[in-house]
């Protein structure tokens, strides 16, 4: 048994301290850079520390205007504004979201994206930066939790690396990342190869949301796909493809709930990331720094942010990220400007039958149930005190091994717990409330049978998995990502906010933010309505395609502000971020 109370705390604390101090950023760099060499901003005591207060540099404002007014960008967006392009985006989404992609088993989704990259989206094999086996060249974290990492990344090549004077980190030239995850909570495990796809079921709004999996399975109106995986444009397709402004309009206009895991979380956004990548390729958008557009693995469930840990060289046992590929900024596609990130601890605990089991022994299921029941009564700091930040938990999953044939003795049972809070103090506080309940459940069950703890006749317990999402609290809002994120909204007219979002999320961005790489979060989806995320009844209804194009316009502008851009008129928008990314550990 591992002491789960102490050593992880010191790792997290160290990680947060290192992130706050910034990482080393000056190894193995060349001289005489060819373009602007603004370093990635470090915390400056003279600048405001209120996360609502920042000053967008005038050159960022000018860059946004230049990019948004650029003829080639306008041509790209005009192309995406056609009815043909809207239909193509919708069909691609349906064809991808039907692929079951459980966390850490995204290989089929990644394979489909990889083949489309080269066969349909216009990329050469050398522009595809990931492999079917999950190995990525250049990172020092290729295996997370003992499993391969099925990311799918493509590169829009910039001009910077072609200069002899370009700076680099260990041979890696600067990159801006745009990413959305490709894993989905449901189904829990990869379905058999003979029946590999999610069913996409349609239900009129006049009927209530399904209450049980059986009710969902009983819906016979489904979307159909041909042998090559293309959606068949039949009557149901026509119904599902209707566009609405919102749920009320969908109810009044004959809309349907389109039930499929991953509709909102988050293939409707991730799929459009690859639409944007293909469009950038088609219209020969040429950034200064390289831009990587990735579908990332392992965001959900026990994924442990594996995809981002590979990309950012985040070693979870150390709590540090080496940023081996030298990302200078990270643009997530799962939210609305989230820049603070909840930390989370996750535990999988196994309760094991006595070494010498027999009838009349304490029971692993009952010990686990006792632990669950005790955890279910925990009140979090925010439920106990008004001044505490919102803190949450759940026992998300439990299962038991089947007894051997002819036996009633269950060999073991396991539970998985998730706990989250925006700051380490309250996260540790809820952990201190929950973790003892594992042992308490065990002790209670052994006590019912008067068994001595640790004896061969007693139940035992083992920690089999530990998950970490490193927290990040924004203290310095003057980052290139926030500048670009806010200014891109203002310039394109797609978002008029002039302050950052002060709430906290738990996203892929936890990893780069904790590693010191600036982040901002957008969406590329347009959903009129939706609900049931993470549950069997996840559904969505198609929103206006125009919104997708507007959001592409914003993400493109924000990305190119940071990467720099060769405009159609021959001028160069210089990158708003320096060429060496931050890190909290050097590459091993």
């Amino acid at each position, binding site marked *: 048994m591992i002491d789960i109370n102490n050593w992880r705390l010191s790792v997290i604390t160290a990680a947060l301290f290192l992130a706050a101090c910034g990482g080393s950023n000056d190894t193995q760099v060349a001289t005489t850079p060819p373009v602007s060499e603004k370093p990635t901003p470090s915390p400056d005591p003279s600048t405001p520390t209120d996360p609502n207060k920042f000053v967008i540099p005038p050159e960022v404002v000018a860059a946004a205007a230049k990019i948004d007014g650029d003829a080639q960008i306008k041509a790209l967006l005009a192309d995406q504004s056609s009815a043909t392009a809207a239909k193509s985006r919708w069909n691609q989404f349906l064809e991808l979201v039907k692929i079951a992609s459980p966390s850490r088993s995204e290989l089929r989704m990644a394979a489909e994206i990889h083949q489309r990259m080269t066969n349909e989206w216009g990329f050469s094999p050398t522009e595809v930066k990931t492999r079917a086996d999950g190995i990525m060249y250049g990172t020092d974290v290729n295996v997370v939790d003992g499993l391969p990492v099925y990311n799918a990344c493509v590169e829009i090549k910039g001009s910077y690396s072609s200069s002899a004077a370009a700076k680099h980190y260990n041979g890696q030239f600067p990159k801006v990342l745009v990413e959305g995850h490709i894993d989905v909570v449901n189904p829990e495990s990869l379905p058999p190869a003979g029946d590999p796809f999610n069913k996409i079921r349609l239900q009129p709004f006049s009927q209530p949301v399904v209450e049980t999996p059986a009710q969902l399975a009983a819906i016979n109106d489904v979307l159909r796909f041909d042998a090559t995986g293309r959606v068949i444009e039949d009557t149901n397709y026509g119904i599902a493809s209707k566009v609405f402004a919102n749920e009320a309009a969908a109810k009044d206009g004959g809309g349907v709930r389109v039930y499929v895991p991953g509709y909102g979380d988050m293939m409707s956004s991730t799929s459009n990331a690859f639409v944007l990548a293909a469009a950038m390729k088609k219209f020969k958008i040429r950034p200064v720094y390289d831009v990587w557009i990735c579908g990332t693995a392992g965001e959900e*469930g026990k994924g442990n942010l594996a995809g981002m840990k590979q990309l950012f060289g985040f070693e979870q046992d150390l709590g540090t990220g080496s940023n081996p590929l030298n990302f200078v900024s990270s643009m997530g596609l799962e939210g609305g400007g989230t820049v603070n990130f909840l930390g989370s601890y996750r535990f999988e605990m196994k309760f094991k039958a006595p070494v010498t089991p027999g009838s009349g022994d304490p029971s692993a*299921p009952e010990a686990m149930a006792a632990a669950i*029941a005790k955890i279910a009564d925990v009140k979090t700091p925010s439920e106990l005190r008004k001044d505490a930040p919102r803190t949450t938990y759940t026992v998300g999953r439990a299962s038991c091994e*089947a007894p051997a044939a002819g036996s*009633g003795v269950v060999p073991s049972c396991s539970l998985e717990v998730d706990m989250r809070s925006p700051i380490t103090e309250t996260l540790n506080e809820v952990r201190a409330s929950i973790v003892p309940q594992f042992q308490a459940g065990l002790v209670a069950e052994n006590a019912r049978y008067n068994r001595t703890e640790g004896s061969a006749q007693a139940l035992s317990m083992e920690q089999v998995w530990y998950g970490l999402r490193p927290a990040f609290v924004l203290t310095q809002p003057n980052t290139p990502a926030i500048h670009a994120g806010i200014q891109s909204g203002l310039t394109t007219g797609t978002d008029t906010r002039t302050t950052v979002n002060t709430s906290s999320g738990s996203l892929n961005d936890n990893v780069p933010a904790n590693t010191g790489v600036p982040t901002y979060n957008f969406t590329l989806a347009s959903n009129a309505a939706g609900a049931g*995320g993470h549950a069997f009844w996840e559904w969505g209804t198609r929103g206006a395609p125009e919104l997708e194009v507007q959001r592409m316009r914003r993400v493109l502008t924000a990305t190119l502000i940071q990467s720099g851009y060769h405009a159609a008129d021959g001028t160069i928008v210089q990158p708003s971020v320096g060429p060496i990314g931050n890190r909290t550990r050097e590459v091993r």
Partner: protein
Amino acid sequence: MNTQFLKKAACLAALTLAGLSAHAQQTGTVAVEFQGPGGHSSGNYGRTSALHAAGRAVIFLQQANLPRGSYTITNVTGGNSVNSIASDGLIELQLTAADATAYADVVSKITAAAKAGADAENAFRGVKAGDTTAGAPAHIRYTVNPGLALR
């Protein structure tokens, strides 16, 4: 879990104990299912958990003062991922009773424990029957199915 369970349920229903003598030792199985709204572990925090309800029900059953050996829990399961509130929970039990009356008493107490577990979870999260969340029922529902356990 649920799909597999439901597929096999009809077959196993045929294996009930209806034909046994009322005075002979009675054995059988029971499956107790819980259903809740599920959701994101953080974004939907505050929703009821079907798995938490199942855990609570097991403790209520322990407190029912049934004779030792009258039931064996062969499975407690539910939920799909660590970062989701469980929308399903399942307890499977094997039962042994001296006669039909005692057997019925065990089933009755299992039913009471299931209700108590659901009620406790609903009360802890402050929801009641008829409440909804995002259009779905917010409260925990339960069913007790003699003869339907897979284990």
